[in-house]
């Protein structure tokens, strides 16, 4: 967490940590991995702690934190990382925020309360299976029909796609970004659970084979979703970054304990300078991961026009460094670190997955280079 947390933020953090440690300690996470992911009752209890409404306006039943909710979400994401928690926090928060901002009266009155209460789960259908996760790469077609639109295309991987009752689909109508809220059981929608590296978080492929939706499925106006999508994307980048920072920070903590406890040649591992210097590097990177994730969330919360660039910076830095921290901590553990029995691989799977999801570091660096090089005059703002 950032070092200037308010009292409310600290209370929120404590409530998350107590809840996760009690309800989904790592042993439970392992069991959920075998049985199919998060428990719906658990999710409703998490929702009761306010997790789902942090970016929802007060009049829509939300926390009324305004954009500052992004900072609370960052705290939540870090804690999720610290315990490799399951649960559709990221897609839920993103979909709820967009419905509150741009949803129709009906969507806000009928759908949003159920998302906030955790009764229903929503997923965001963004990527389409190519290398790029950028909104520019979206091609899923929304063809106008007499009564609405027909959606055709494939979205994959979709976080929590297998468990979601509602899908926020980012598509193109007449070439312009347009979003729809579609029930997962709509005719023509096929959801296939994917296998994956992360044991607690699941992804699905969602096919739209000429799915007919009415005008009322639109979230915002046709062709007018670019700002919402950009904001969703920024949130996803920053939250994935915060989660990886939390995960890597936690791994570093318990690996340090291990180094104190473990003796080799009559000396604790922690006394070997070659290892000490690597711990020093890892500590530095870990603090930098926290710093850049917090800065991105603060920029989003502040409506800073640089938020998009800062979110990409955070995602690229944490994508490079969080996995390397965890890998070197595996090395510090020795043989036990590459066993199934030891929890460290749960963390490695999470940060490796986060590195890829919502775009790899190289994709974000390329986008950053574009802001530096491709604008007239090299304007970097």
């Amino acid at each position, binding site marked *: 967490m950032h070092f200037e947390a308010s009292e409310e933020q600290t209370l929120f953090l404590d409530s998350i940590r107590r809840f996760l440690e009690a309800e989904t300690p*790592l042993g439970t996470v392992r069991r959920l991995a075998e049985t199919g992911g998060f428990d719906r009752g658990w999710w409703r209890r998490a929702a009761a702690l306010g997790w789902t409404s942090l970016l929802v306006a007060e009049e829509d039943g939300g926390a009324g934190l305004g954009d500052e909710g992004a900072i609370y979400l960052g705290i939540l994401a870090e804690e999720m990382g610290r315990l490799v928690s399951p649960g559709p926090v990221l897609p839920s928060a993103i979909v709820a925020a967009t419905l509150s901002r741009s949803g129709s009266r009906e969507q806000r009155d009928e759908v949003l309360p159920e998302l906030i209460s955790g009764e229903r789960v929503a997923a965001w259908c963004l*990527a389409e*299976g*190519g*290398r790029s996760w950028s909104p520019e790469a979206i091609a899923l077609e929304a063809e106008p029909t007499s009564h609405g639109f027909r959606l055709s295309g494939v979205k*994959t*991987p979709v976080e929590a796609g297998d468990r979601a009752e509602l899908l926020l689909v980012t598509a193109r109508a007449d070439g312009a970004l347009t979003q729809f809220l579609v029930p997962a059981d709509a005719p023509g929608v096929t959801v*296939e659970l*994917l*296998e*994956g*590296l*992360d044991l607690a978080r699941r*992804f699905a*492929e969602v096919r739209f084979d000429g799915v007919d939706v009415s005008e009322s499925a639109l979230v915002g106006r046709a062709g007018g979703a670019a700002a919402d999508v950009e904001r969703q994307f920024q949130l996803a980048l920053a939250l994935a970054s915060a989660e990886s920072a939390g995960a890597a920070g936690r791994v570093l903590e*318990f690996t340090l*304990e*291990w180094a*104190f*406890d*473990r*003796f*080799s*040649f*009559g*000396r604790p*591992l922690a006394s*070997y300078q*070659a*290892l000490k210097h690597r711990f020093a590097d890892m500590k530095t990177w870990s603090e930098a991961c926290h710093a850049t994730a917090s800065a991105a969330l603060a920029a989003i919360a502040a409506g800073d026009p640089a938020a998009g660039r800062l979110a990409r910076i955070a995602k690229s830095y944490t994508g490079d460094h969080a996995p390397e921290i965890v*890998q070197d901590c*595996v*090395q510090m553990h*020795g*043989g*036990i*670190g*590459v*066993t*199934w*029995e*030891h*929890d*460290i*691989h749960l963390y*490695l*799977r999470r940060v*490796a*997955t986060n590195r*890829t*999801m919502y775009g*790899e570091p*190289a994709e974000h660096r390329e986008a950053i280079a574009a802001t530096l090089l491709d604008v007239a005059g090299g304007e970097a703002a």
Partner: protein
Amino acid sequence: MSTESVEDFRARARAWLAANMPRLAPGAPAWNAMDVSEQDAARARELQRKLYDGGFAGLCFPREYGGQGLTPAHQRAFTEECRPYEMPLLFNTPTFTIIAPTLLDMGSEAQKRRHLPAMIRGDELWVQFMSEPSGGSDLAGALTSAKWDGGQWLLNGSKIWSSYAYFSDYAICLARTDWDAVKHQGLTMFIVKIRQPGVTVNRIRQSDGAIEFCQEFFDDVPIPPENVIGQVNDGWTVAQRLLHHERSSTGGSSPYASGTAGTRKESIDDLVELTRRAGLAGDRTARQQLAEAYVLQTVQVQLVDRVVKGMETGALPTTAGALLRLFGGTFAARRATIGFELAGSDAVAWKAGEERASRYGHGYVFRQASCLGGGSTEMQRNIISERILGMPREPAADRGVPFKDVRRNTGTSRR
């Protein structure tokens, strides 16, 4: 006795292989050391026997112990010729490259006559009982103990990280026989029969989900005195020979390995195919990564050649195998990372039945194993700096102290 020329030998081997050994299907996957079943072991025993019957087993082992008494050059020629054939690669490591040369160096005449021919015939698969759950890199800190009791030793304790113990026959096992001596002087190396009462073998699941390694528990396992290798309480001398051969083995410079798991070309073809399948054949960053992997792989082979020659000519000390272990371990980790990055989201989430890219994800999760198995890269760096470069040894808190008084692990922060 004049030795057959390498080229004559090569021609004879080629003909024999074609007539006797099963050919690999084109495009058959390279042998996967990670996932070996008892059936695979039985098959390896059968093929090894076939080689033995044909006079092509144990090429570099002395004739008196069932080998062919040939040179490393003959072995290299054979390894080149046998590439298209199914080979009993399971015998290479640790049986032929680590255990057998240790027995050759340190075993009694009776031990050599009893076990080496049996290995070469395919009758005995061996494993190492060296590492312990509490031990990490500090092999000489073994807590497994053997007590002299009525004309035999009784073994108690636990060993870990032994590959394939569940279908192997014998193990070479380091145990503490004097707790009052300082660490390195109270150890003895034993030959232990695995399948006998008192030995329990559990399999360990790896972080990538595969099962290769084992943990063993010993409960008053009897060992006859003739199964001591070298002298009682001089087991560390034997262990050092064993570690030397292990470095040669994992570094790729052992003359006792016969056949290899895939040629160099196959190994890069893997990444080439991945790059193409991922649609990245025209992506400049991906091309750089692919070429980096190929450069490192090529340099690894070149470094093996150089270091082996350096050790042969005395230009490098025999500990120089640590250079190969370090290079090989870090390269394998880098290669796993490149594979993971090339594979993109397919390595992170995939459809059931379309797992091709998933192994790059699992390879990434298991990445550090290449920097741990066969001696961690940290130990290799210690060896290189202290024994090749002659830099001062690390201070150890366990020197000159009876082993029973040495400080050991505290807490139980293993999670």
